[in-house]
């Protein structure tokens, strides 16, 4: 492939949204209340919409007969390069909101930079997505504060979620080879430069939510290299079931 780095770079962005969108989609009809159910699935839909734009572009770059659906549905686990954070399960609503918040803050900062990309397609997708992601960030921030600074029980659950998910935050700022190549061409975002602003924002909101910022300096990694947590296989089994069972089916 001529533009292999660009192809890989796009998947690196899009896979996060695909997998998080799938996780949120699991809540369809299962959210803790009607409004939050609809909110989570709305966010899922936004993410899937963004993913389509990215994968359509990636398919064009690949230049073979590959389609957006092939990229989304027919890769093996090791070929997905999403961060570990987004594949973590909906253990309870505290986890769902905390995972969302930790990703939204990153996503917003990331897209704000991607908007400046020399690649016009990526820049257009970023501009479009930013409008949506600012709503996502409002939603998750709002709930994080409400539950963190809520009852003793909600606070305890939120603290448990933040302690449990904290270990997956550092990976957001790891650069892959494709990242480095794209940054040098003015196409990609230098994620290492987002780290400071990210933790500043996250810690400020946690503080406002009366939650304790975890102190652990031990962070998990691997997603960007295709090495996933145990939850990923189950997620993909559900995501890919139809295409695996009935190859090329359409509806």
């Amino acid at each position, binding site marked *: 492939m001529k533009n292999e780095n660009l192809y890989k770079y796009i998947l690196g962005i899009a896979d996060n949204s695909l997998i998080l969108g799938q996780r949120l989609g699991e809540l369809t009809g299962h959210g803790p209340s009607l*409004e*939050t159910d*609809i*909110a989570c699935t*709305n*966010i899922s*839909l*936004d*993410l*899937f*919409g*963004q993913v*389509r*734009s990215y994968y359509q572009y990636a398919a064009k770059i690949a230049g073979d007969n590959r389609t957006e659906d092939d990229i989304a549905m027919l890769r093996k686990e090791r070929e997905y390069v999403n961060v570990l954070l987004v594949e973590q399960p909906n253990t309870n609503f505290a986890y769902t909101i905390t995972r969302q918040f930790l990703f939204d803050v990153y996503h917003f900062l990331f897209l704000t930079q991607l908007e400046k990309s020399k690649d*016009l*397609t990526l*820049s*257009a*997708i970023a*501009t*479009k*997505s930013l*409008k*949506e992601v600012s*709503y996502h960030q*409002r*939603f998750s921030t*709002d709930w994080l504060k409400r539950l963190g600074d809520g009852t003793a029980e909600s606070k305890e659950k939120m603290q448990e979620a933040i302690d449990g998910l904290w270990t997956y935050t550092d990976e957001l700022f790891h650069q892959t080879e494709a990242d480095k190549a794209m940054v040098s061409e003015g196409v990609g975002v230098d994620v290492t430069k987002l780290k400071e602003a990210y933790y500043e924002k996250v810690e400020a909101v946690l503080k406002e939510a009366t939650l304790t910022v975890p102190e652990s300096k031990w962070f998990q990694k691997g997603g960007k290299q295709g090495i996933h947590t145990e939850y990923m296989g189950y997620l993909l089994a559900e995501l890919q079931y139809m295409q695996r069972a009935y190859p090329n089916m359409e509806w």
Partner: protein
Amino acid sequence: MVTEKQNINQSLIPILEKVSDPEIPVLSIMDMGVVRSAVIENNKVKVQITPTYSGCPAMDVIGDDIKAALKTAGYDSEIELILAPAWTTDWITPRGRKALEDYGIAAPLDAEADKDVLLNGKRLVKCTNCGSANTRLVSQFGSTACKAQFQCDDCQEPFDYFKCLK
């Protein structure tokens, strides 16, 4: 920055005006502002449309509906989905805003007021049933990506509010 002019062949306007948003049937796609260009080249119509929200499932249907409407009028057509410049609620026409209100969806406020009602609990959105502004936000997300849920504290009617998107 987002005021790029539409380039639409006058003779196509009556045809395109008959196509509506499948999720909001009272609203023509022209009043919605999603058609960015429509030109005739060698008896073939090239149409560019832009999504309201990335995941808007209506876009595929709108594309098919445009094709069908143009076919009936004797044109073959080609639909292209473009992302830039990104759609904004400013592109909804005054007639479109009125159609929304009549249908029971409150039209988008300006960006500042929108922020106040969605984030700060201000009561500014007028109830589409009784006109009172004594309304409150039920959820920032509604039945489609573009709407939020509200309820009127006077007549008690729940209604949708079309969120401002800039």
